[in-house]
């Protein structure tokens, strides 16, 4: 904190709130309502420095933060025939797709990349929430399948990072089928005894949560992420149950035994590297045997033989 944040910012807030916040310069924390300067957000990987709230991280930033030196290689995914149902609601799905592609510069809601993490070769499939809510249709399914195949081919661990509201409704039953499809895909990685790690980010719900996302050997969640099957609003409106505090948040899932750990973004990379290393480099001592280490013989403790 300095004089600027303490003094000038509140004034600025009073002046510009609520509408005239210049885009991209200041972002309002959805949790504590503080305005955060964009450079601060960049430094903290989109974590609010006031309350620790984890804002969504764009997919490129996500990949950058994970790989060694922020370096990775994106995989070009096979192109899928668009709009299999010729779906139309108030707008044609084909038009929605075209608009989202133009807006995001991405072909669909998943990015697949490979590179090194802590020196270990890793394949990562990360969802892009900005692309139609990260919803899973055939192209996303294809991304998971391609990522899994690449992991098997490279004998690498697979990390999948969902950020998805669930199935892509406009692809109807074919989006539902991606649940079975992606399940087979990640099972193939597991069959090869390659680590399959899922990093659950906000949100992971619906058909995505009820398939590959809940099948990780290790399940790590970012703090405060919404993770669950049924939407909270659906539960409230159809069943008329009151939702408990923190319902469907990462910490709730940890408490219910559904994830292994909740890890703040700043510690994610180190945690993932440690987990992968423990599973992949099971006896590094064996690699060091050739080194002439001068280790004294252990002194036997009393009472041992």
């Amino acid at each position, binding site marked *: 904190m300095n004089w600027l944040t303490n003094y000038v910012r509140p004034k600025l807030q009073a002046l510009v709130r609520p509408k005239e916040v210049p885009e991209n310069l200041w972002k309002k924390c959805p949790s504590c309502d503080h305005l955060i300067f964009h450079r601060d957000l960049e430094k903290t990987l989109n974590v609010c420095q006031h309350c620790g709230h984890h804002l969504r991280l764009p997919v490129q930033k996500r990949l950058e933060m994970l790989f060694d030196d922020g370096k990775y290689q994106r995989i070009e995914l096979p*192109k*899928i*025939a668009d709009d*299999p*149902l010729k*779906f*139309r*609601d*108030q707008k044609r799905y084909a038009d929605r797709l075209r608009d989202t592609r133009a807006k995001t510069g991405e072909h669909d809601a998943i990015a697949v990349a490979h590179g090194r993490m802590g020196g270990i070769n890793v394949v990562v499939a990360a969802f892009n929430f900005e692309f139609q809510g990260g919803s899973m249709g*055939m192209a996303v*399914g*294809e991304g998971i*399948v391609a990522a899994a195949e690449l992991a098997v081919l490279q004998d690498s661990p697979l990390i999948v990072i969902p950020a998805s509201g669930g*199935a892509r*409704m*406009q*692809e*109807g*039953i*074919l*989006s*539902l*089928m*991606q*649940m*079975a*499809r992606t*399940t*087979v*895909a990640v*099972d193939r990685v597991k069959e090869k005894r390659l680590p399959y790690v899922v990093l659950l980010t906000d949100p992971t*719900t*619906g*058909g995505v*949560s*009820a*398939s*590959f*996302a*809940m*099948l990780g050997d290790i399940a790590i969640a970012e703090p405060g992420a919404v*993770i*669950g*099957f*049924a*939407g909270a609003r*659906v*539960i409230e409106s*159809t*069943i008329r*149950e*009151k*939702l*408990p505090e923190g*319902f*469907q948040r990462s910490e*709730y899932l940890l408490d*219910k*035994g*559904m994830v292994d750990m909740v890890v703040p973004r700043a510690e994610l990379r180190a945690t993932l590297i440690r987990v992968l290393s423990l599973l992949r480099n099971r006896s590094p001592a064996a690699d060091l045997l050739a080194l002439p280490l001068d280790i004294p013989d252990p002194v036997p403790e009393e009472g041992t033989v």
Partner: protein
Amino acid sequence: MHILDFEKPIAELEGKIEELRHLTDGGDVNIADEVGRLQAKVDKLLRSTYAKLTPWQKTLVARHPERPHALDYVRALIEDFTPLAGDRSFGEDRAIVGGLGRFRGASVMVIGNEKGSDTESRLKHNFGMAKPEGYRKARRLMEMAAHFGVPVLTLVDTAGAYPGVDAEARGQAEAIARSIETCLDIRVPMVSVIIGEGGSGGAIALAAANTVLMLEHAIYSVISPEGCASILWRTSDAAKDAAEALKLTAQDLHKLGVIDAVVPEPLGGAHRNPDLAIQTLSTALDSAFRELSGTDGGVLRARRREKFLDMGRAGLAA
């Protein structure tokens, strides 16, 4: 009998037939003629109505309360049915029924969503909406079947998995994911039938099978038409449009290659003649299981996995 809106003209004619029958006691030839004439009209109207049901009308037929449900099929087709209960960790979920029995003499593990048929049984079976323990029971039974080399038959009929706080607390998503995983893993023949409503994740959890059959007027969808309408049209009034757009009928799904065959229903839907519907399915099941029998379990598993791995890949752009 529960009459659907579009069935009303048919019901009116049938009402007239009933009245006439009461009048005569069978003796009057003129009235008997009139009854015959009206009956022909009913048949014609049924045929024309049911030949061109809209997706929304099919949705209503699929949910018809008098449509045969899983236990109706089990009672009629499965001998020595021995229900098996519980997930061995939390409880018994009656929204999913399951057990061992014999179909045409051969042992089979039957698992189905049961909606119930009156208020009492609907409550007992939670309207066919399963909680995690239901899917975990299904998984346990599938694994047991595989362990003993017994084929698996699933009867899918659910609006979806139960959207409740307790279900979420116990890991609804994980339970469904594991159930799908198990469907795709077992080394025995597996046949699934969408007998009524195939509602989203709660349905695919039991339906990743070697052979997926679907009744003529059943529906199978990623989301209910009402749910889809309220999200994409922002009003549930658009459910008819959503039903249309979702391509959720057996005929559409067969074209899309998502199901393997459509099982015909009696004229006027399964609810008009449950016995005939059940017998027709029996024949279809017999040939489905025959087709799979004799094939090595590992091959069946591999084929099943390939089949679902390819769903959507067929849509690869040239």
